[in-house]
């Protein structure tokens, strides 16, 4: 299916958007229900807030955590394999990304010129790797924690302890990464990317100026076909 809109560039497919928002909602539900497992809602009187009584019920928050986990695991595997099958590796960090992301940050601060970017900025690729690895750690340790709760299964306690500790630390790290991800939109230059994750399209002018390498590829592809 061909998608074109005057003055706009199609940046995020429906599949990508569903993955992004599905992951966002499931991770949000996992954080809410995960904190319920700590346990903290009763201790800090959160259950006394109107409509929040259910947060103190482990059987509800645990069920919510399992449902969120099943959705997230499905999305993570779908995401990894759909890009593997299609040989799409735009978001994978490249050599020199750390240096390049520093150049972009410096350009934003000094209002100078940014280096030409691909579909994703160098810091976006690094952020993707950080979030991806953290989510994978959470998924793997979470699966070990699930197996541990099955009566016929036996997992050595040392593995369970390592998984639990990693799961707890990775949760806090993921929350930090999500805050950083959202904070990126405090920078005006990045806000032009927002519609991409909602409608799929971003302004052509924006792409032309910031994602020069990607734009060139799109123009070349158009000329070829």
């Amino acid at each position, binding site marked *: *299916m*061909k998608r074109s809109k005057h003055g706009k560039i199609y940046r995020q497919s429906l*599949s990508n958007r569903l993955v992004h928002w599905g992951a966002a909602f499931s991770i949000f539900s996992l954080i809410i229900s995960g904190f319920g*497992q*700590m*346990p*903290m809602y009763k*201790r*800090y*009187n959160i259950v006394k807030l109107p409509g929040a009584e259910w947060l103190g019920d*482990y*059987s509800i928050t*645990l*069920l919510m955590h*399992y*449902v969120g*986990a*099943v*959705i997230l*695991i*499905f*999305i*993570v*595997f*779908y*995401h*990894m*394999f*759909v890009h*593997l*099958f*299609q*040989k*799409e590796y735009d978001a994978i960090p490249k050599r020199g990304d750390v240096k390049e992301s520093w150049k972009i940050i410096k350009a934003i601060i000094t209002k100078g010129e940014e280096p030409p970017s691909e579909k994703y900025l160098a810091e976006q690729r690094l952020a993707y790797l950080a979030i991806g690895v953290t989510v994978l750690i959470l998924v793997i340790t979470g*699966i*070990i924690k*699930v*197996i*541990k*709760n*099955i*009566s*016929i*299964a*036996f*997992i050595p*306690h040392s*593995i*369970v*302890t390592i*998984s*639990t*500790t990693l799961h*707890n630390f990775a949760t806090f790290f993921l929350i930090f990464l999500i805050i950083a991800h959202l904070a990126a939109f405090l920078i005006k230059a990045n806000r032009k990317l927002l519609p991409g994750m909602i409608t799929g399209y971003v302004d052509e002018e924006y792409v032309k100026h910031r994602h020069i390498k990607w734009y060139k590829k799109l123009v070349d592809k158009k000329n070829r*076909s």
Partner: protein
Amino acid sequence: MSNRLTRREFIKNSSGAVVLGTVLLTGADKVFAQTKPSTDKGTVIDLTQCDGCSAKDTPACVLACRTKNQDKFPKVDSDHLKPYWPQKTYEDWSDKQDISNRLTPYNWTFVDKVVVEHNGSTKEVFVPKRCMHCDNPTCAGVCPFSAIKKYENGAVVINDNQCMGGAKCRDVCPWDIPQRQAGVGLYMKLAPEYLGGGVMYKCDFCADLLKVGKEPACVNACPKGAISFGTKQSMRELAYNRAKEVAGFVYGDKENGGTSTFYVSKVPFEKIDKAIKKQKQETNDFKPGRPTMEVNIENKLDSFSGMALSAAIAPIAGIAAAGFAAYNKLKGEKNNHEEE
């Protein structure tokens, strides 16, 4: 190099990935889900024998447990006790260490006494209570710090160096067994006012004695021989044989999905449970530490087995959906190309 994907490459890539995924997933269960060792130990508590050591101030099993475990009891500096912010209270039993008629951090077993009507007569029933050492302990399953371990010999043990005292284990235990003491443990080294609540304490099946082939302290101490100890299988058989002999009932085999403790009683456990609940109501005693005996109480972790299966299927479903989506895209691109 072109990034364009041919149909042949796509099939090669996807079949390899599916095979790899399947191998990883099926292999993982072999690594992690080894067969559970059958070295479990168990006990039988024969209520037809126990008289609660009526002639003594403290039942012998309770005394033996307290003596044996006194070094493990919490040592609290009361000057450092602070409420669990923003709550105004904290759980402190350090000034009530002598209490022996309920479970506390300083009393890991007690003998409950109830009066029940059965077969037209009134009977006094004495019920020694402590951790049941479940087969799939809910407390260990849900502990957010993995501070509770189920040993191969069946003992369920709380690691007091790892416990933060959130008391979740007590909330999910069908018998509210673990009891909390504030002012001790890991949380005191972090932010004691704002995080954690102490350490949870309970019977550890005398895990150290079991390790060297000895019996738990309460077993030896009982003057009536009401507590038996052996392999779990032999204890289960003993319990059912004894129940048959006295035309009685067994508690602990089915409850919470199975435990290492088998009670035998002539009086149905429904009646014992009802009597405990009635007494708790009459004395307005709803604090944890005096467990009820609900028959066939289910293990909440078991109800999540279906969800665990969904979690196992999710990766395969994700890979299949990815294959379907990628194939459709490839087909779409090919059709467009042919049209052009």
